[in-house]
């Protein structure tokens, strides 16, 4: 399905280097779809981009209310970008509630495109307006484009024989057509997509096509000419691209890990927002021999993954914070059994049920410490949607080559956000070498061969003998066991030895050195992990473009930490750690390296913007300059 597209007929329109558009409407208005299509068209056009879908909390809120607003923000540009943008340049508001809830996010002087038809009494009241903002001062300082989208859509559909009520459902395609015109997006891909998507509902396809064309034409005819701009292609590295969100990338990464290791993938999972899509995606890929098991709860899900792993599968369990809190005991079992297991935590707002559809990154400490006893596990975190692919492979690699549960941290922002991804060559992916024991590894007192399940290799790892392997029958369990034989042991010395061995074998897993982005000799070092990468990178670029120095280290491996990290931290005068929590990585760094790592916290269920971090960096740099002088 590879398309090549050219810049289209609008080459003569003035060029801007980037634009941030926010589509907002009622949950029923199809804003996610609209945003998604606009994104795809832009991606195929050749822009760099990043997206931020935001939908209401799980329950379907009453139509027309603020609680029901669904939005999709997309940032497109002619250069490399890393975030969905600080503040939109354009807000498409399909109803009053959308305007009311999102207007404040717009840049001063930005453009509001609104569906005039919905600004009538009932909808205004539902949105909590006691007046019509179109008539009031609310929109002062913005460029406002009022379009009677509903009417125009219905008109366009009338001759097709579509009932007005059904035609109304196509108004998002009108908006999409209009915006496609304004930003000179290629239209073929969208029209093709409509064809395929609604293949079996011809009338719907026709209505959507008509609405899209009407929107596009409206730009031409309604004297909006001055609004038309173009965002040129970004100079991306050559290759084949697709636009991917984090959960899909993560799912594919797990499939890839299964292929690379030659082990069948077994997913034990229990649905939970925002992790369910991984279960959905993997359920679709039975052609890869993927087994998905929707268990009765999270404990059964991880239990089954452990069982499958014991049987020779790549055992994975996916969930979000509340699920991880439930899996602690079973993960401790896997630690004690020294079995491979990947535990994926797509973090969301907490504590407790919290903000299920909002992003947060406050499960790091639970990942480190959420089990009783000394129960160390490696932790890795993804930094961008596409990076979820790599991290899934990395998590599986560590799990399978070091016989340990590994926690993979993603979050709601990465899960649902998307970016263009240059597809890797499958041949370039590094195979994962998994070795199972097939022979005796010891001789007993009588000179007979025996199998010791806890006889360690030079990396302190134990051999795994799969059930089915002749002669190597053995028993393992969660009670403390003798190093070597694996027999139940209550010996004090052995227990201490095992506690240290478990610690050491995880602590000595080789992880790549941390790399410094920006100025290695800067006074200020920003240390990040997870999805803050985009905002930090954006901020660091702006700071450096403005001629100030700053360094950035972004951690993929949170346990163990890169060996060079301590030196890096100590080689800067000041260390700041932006986190979507109250300071979890910063506490780890402080404890580990006795460095005064300072937290920059945001816990709003929303990712950092580059601007917020830029601001904080400038503050610190000013202070440092003051100190320095």
């Amino acid at each position, binding site marked *: *399905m*590879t*398309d*090549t*597209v050219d810049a289209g007929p609008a080459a003569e329109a003035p060029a801007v280097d980037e634009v941030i558009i926010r589509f907002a409407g009622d949950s029923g208005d199809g804003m996610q779809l609209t945003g998604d299509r606009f994104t*795809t068209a832009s*991606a*195929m056009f050749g822009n760099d981009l990043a997206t931020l879908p935001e939908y209401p909390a799980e329950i379907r809120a009453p139509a027309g209310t603020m609680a029901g607003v669904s939005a999709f923000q997309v940032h497109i540009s002619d250069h490399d970008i890393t975030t969905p943008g600080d503040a939109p340049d354009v807000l498409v508001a399909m109803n009053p509630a959308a305007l009311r809830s999102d207007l404040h996010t717009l840049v001063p002087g930005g453009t509001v495109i609104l569906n005039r038809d919905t600004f009538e009494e009932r909808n205004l009241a539902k949105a909590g307006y006691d007046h019509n903002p179109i008539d009031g001062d609310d929109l002062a300082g913005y460029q406002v484009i009022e379009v009677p989208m509903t009417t125009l859509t219905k008109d366009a559909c009338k001759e097709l024989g579509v009932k007005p009520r059904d035609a109304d459902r196509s108004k998002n395609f009108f908006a999409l057509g209009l915006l496609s015109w304004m930003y000179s997006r290629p239209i073929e891909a969208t029209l093709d*997509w409509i064809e395929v998507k609604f293949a079996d509902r011809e009338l719907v396809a026709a209505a959507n096509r008509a609405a899209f064309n009407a929107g596009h034409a409206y730009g031409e005819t309604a004297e909006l000419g001055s609004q038309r701009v173009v965002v040129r292609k970004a100079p*991306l*590295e*050559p290759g*084949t*691209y*697709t636009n*991917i969100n984090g959960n899909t990338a993560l799912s*594919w990464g797990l*499939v*890839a890990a299964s292929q690379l290791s*030659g082990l069948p993938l*077994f997913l*034990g999972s229990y649905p939970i927002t925002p992790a369910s899509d991984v279960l959905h995606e993997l359920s679709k*890929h*039975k*052609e*890869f*021999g993927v*087994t998905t*098991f929707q*268990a*009765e709860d999270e404990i*059964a899900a991880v*239990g*089954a*993954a*452990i*069982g*499958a792993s014991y*049987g*020779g599968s790549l055992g994975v369990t996916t969930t979000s914070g509340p699920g991880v809190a439930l899996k602690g*005991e079973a993960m*401790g*079992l896997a630690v004690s*059994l020294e079995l491979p297991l990947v535990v994926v935590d797509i973090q969301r707002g907490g504590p407790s049920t919290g903000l299920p559809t909002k992003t947060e990154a406050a499960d790091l400490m639970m990942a480190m410490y959420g089990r009783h006893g000394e129960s160390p596990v490696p932790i890795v975190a993804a930094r961008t949607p596409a990076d979820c692919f790599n991290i899934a492979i990395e998590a599986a690699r560590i799990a399978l080559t070091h016989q340990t549960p590994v926690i993979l941290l993603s979050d709601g922002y990465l899960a649902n956000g998307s970016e263009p991804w*240059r*597809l890797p060559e*499958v041949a370039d992916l590094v195979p994962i070498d998994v070795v*199972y024991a*097939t022979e005796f590894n010891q001789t007993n007192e009588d000179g007979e061969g025996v199998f010791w399940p806890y006889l360690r290799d030079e990396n302190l790892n134990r051999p795994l003998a*799969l*059930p*089915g*392997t*002749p002669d190597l*029958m*053995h*028993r*393992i*369990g*969660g009670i403390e066991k003798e190093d070597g034989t694996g027999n139940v042991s209550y010996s004090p010395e052995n227990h201490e030895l095992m506690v240290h061995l478990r610690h050491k074998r995880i602590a000595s897993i080789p992880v790549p050195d941390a790399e410094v982005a920006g100025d290695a000799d800067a006074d200020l070092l920003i240390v990040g992990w997870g999805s803050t990468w985009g905002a930090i990178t954006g901020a660091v670029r702006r700071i450096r473009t403005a001629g100030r120095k700053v360094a950035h280290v972004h951690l993929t491996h949170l346990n163990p930490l890169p060996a060079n990290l301590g030196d890096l931290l100590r080689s800067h005068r000041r260390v700041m750690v932006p986190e979507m929590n109250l300071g979890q990585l910063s506490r780890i760094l402080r404890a580990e390296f006795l460095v005064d790592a300072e937290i920059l916290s945001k816990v709003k269920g929303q990712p950092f913007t580059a601007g917020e971090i830029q601001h904080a960096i400038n503050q610190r740099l000013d202070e440092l300059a003051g100190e320095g002088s």
Partner: protein
Amino acid sequence: MTDVLDAGANREADEVPATTRADWTSDQEVRWCPGCGDYSILTAMQLLLPELKARREKTVFISGIGCAARFPYYMNTYGVHTIHGRAPAVATGLAMARPDLDVWVIGGDGDMLSIGGNHLIHALRRNVNLNILLFNNQIYGLTKGQFSPTSQKGKVTKSSPVGLVARPFNPISVALGSEATFVARTHDMDRQHMQDTFRRAYEHEGSAFVEVLQNCNVFNDGVFSTITKKDVREDMLIELNHGQPILFGSEKQYGVALAPEGVVIVDVAKLGIENVMVHDETIRNPSTAFSLSRIAKTPATPTPIGVFRAIDRDEFSSSVAAQIQEVQAQLGKGDLGDLLRSQPTWEV
């Protein structure tokens, strides 16, 4: 590793070497209290498996935590002593991943009906190919004597010093209410009956649930002795045999017959043998089996043992595997490069 998994496929091909009890006995010292009923269950298993011509390397015992759950350590097979209550979950994953294995699940009444109750009923509902043995001693043995969900009302234990308030589960009723396809009961005082029952469980495709009445001579001694002791058995145990009228008593003078409120115990002489129920394990409707499970109201009244229900139904793991095979037959094995290109792509 491919070899190991493929070994399953060839299982029927090679001849299974003859084994003896010793071959199935691990080198670990058995650590139950002297006199514990668990010993005789272990013996029954170690004697049965050679008869079944099972392969040790293809046999896995998965258990939770409890005295019963120590069982895997004593079997010279593969085994995992997991955590309290979760054995059915771990076993489900293993059975799904490895249909070539014989997976046994062992646990106590606390392990599988208290903390693990949910995993048990879901495993039964799904009909995963597991042989689940619940050692019911109506007490928490390992933690030294608290009541369990099968302890009788009024029971005085460490955690119910003035008598237990709640009524117990009837494990057979719970299993039948959970759509179990194979449900049986046996007891630790009759090795042959245990072997026969375990054999049936082994042969059943799908989840086989067996309640084993087991004496904990330290914390709940003699709780089943009114029915399982040699000299009372005839009168107190109602043996269910497929295709046979359900009779018991030294002279087979008692029988079981249908009544409006469920099955009841009758006097054969009075009712006539022709009105005694003929046991049919294979009735798809579980109502009759359920009714049989209600005959014994306490462990001191006549109690049915044997196979209550044994019906054929799609086994879960193989159905899951079949879906995968079907898709692969249709689409071919997945190609990673194709997957990466399965969404719209563009070239730069």
